[in-house]
């Protein structure tokens, strides 16, 4: 895979009367993590959703591998996974079923691949239980398995460490590090510093 590149220029976005993104520029290439920081309400969630195309940008453009994403939305979407504040899981399905339908929609999956991903995120023990019966952190781990399984170059993560125990914080760091090593790139909104190789880590601080 040639090195991927996400670039955004002069993003402007209003929520109701509020000018939330005031000309944000960013540039992340394969192997880099861009950490979004900023006080509560600074616009981290808004920026992540806008990049994914879930919030309407008033002005500015987003480029994926130097192509405007509006020219090939499906292609761009196929290259990214967005994980928001809440894990996108069906509470009546088991973790394995959730992954089968959710990530399976993106690329064909084998059962062993699913099992492996669940194992990698420490969710192997409860993959066969309905998600509804899982604790908050267990649910988050199942969602992270979906992230791993998708095998896409671009990760957009909104507070991925929420609800995770101390071992889980390290899990996130490990997952991101591996992803970067593989040439992927990630943008994550995290409040505390992640233990990631500083040469790969860049920071974008949003002001409220």
């Amino acid at each position, binding site marked *: 895979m040639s090195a991927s590149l996400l670039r955004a220029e002069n993003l402007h976005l209003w929520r109701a009367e509020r000018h939330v993104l005031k000309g944000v520029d960013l540039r992340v290439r394969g192997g880099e993590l861009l950490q979004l920081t900023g006080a509560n309400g600074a616009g981290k969630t808004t920026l992540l959703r806008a990049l994914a195309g879930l919030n*309407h940008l008033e002005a500015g453009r987003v480029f994926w591998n130097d192509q405007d994403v509006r020219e090939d939305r499906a292609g761009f979407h196929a290259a990214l996974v*967005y994980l928001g504040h809440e894990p996108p899981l069906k509470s009546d399905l088991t973790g394995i079923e959730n992954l089968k339908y959710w990530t399976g929609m993106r690329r064909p999956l084998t059962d062993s691949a699913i099992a492996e991903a669940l194992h990698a995120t420490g969710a192997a023990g409860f993959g066969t239980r309905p998600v509804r019966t899982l604790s908050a952190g267990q649910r988050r781990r199942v969602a992270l398995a979906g992230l791993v399984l998708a095998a896409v170059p671009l990760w957009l993560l909104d507070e991925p460490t929420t609800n995770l125990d101390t071992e889980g914080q390290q899990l996130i760091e490990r997952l991101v590090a591996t992803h970067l090593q593989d040439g992927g790139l990630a943008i994550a909104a995290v409040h505390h510093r992640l233990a990631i190789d500083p040469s790969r880590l860049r920071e974008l601080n949003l002001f409220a």
Partner: protein
Amino acid sequence: MSDRLTPPLTAARLVVSRDLLLAFRRPEQLVHPLAFFVMVTTLFPLSVSPERAQLRAIAPGVLWVAALLAALLALDFLFRDDAQDGTLEQYALSGQSLTWLLLGKTAAHWLLTGLPLSLMAPLMGYTLGVPMSAGAGIMVTVALGSLALSFIGSIGAALTLGVRRGGVLLSILILPLAVPILIFGSRATELAIRGETYLAPMELLASVVVLSFTLAPLAAAAAVRISLE
């Protein structure tokens, strides 16, 4: 990182099988629209009059209004759960054609609500004094009508996603579009009860189905994208 993507039809099939699995995981959901249909048709004779002749005269109307309401209520849930837990967002970001995915969802929805309703309709007709001979006609017309309603309803359901308690707003949006279905359907049922040929209204019904089948998924996909913002 793999470049092999799931083909669009496989993705749509995954959506259908997922929705069927979810429904069978909670079988009471399957029963709900049916139960509602049965209840409404039961309530009428209770509050109107239990006389057979009078009941039979209003039977087509009661059957169709009840079926319409049952299907309408079920429509409210077409996308709501998926929107709430973020599944719809993930569909939109899956790189797959949203139109196909929503077509899958709508098909599953009909299989789970419209089909059982149409199988039940002749039986409920009987309690209202409709002869068994009209059963097949009632079944087919209700099946077609509910299919059209599922498609048309998918647009409304998508439009009211962002709205809390969209349920009744949905009904208001959909009903004007559903009125032709109601009129053709109850007309066909009436003819079937009288033992006459009901081909003419049935053809009209079928053409509504074809029209809504071709247009609705596109419109619904556009509406879902808008409401996700």
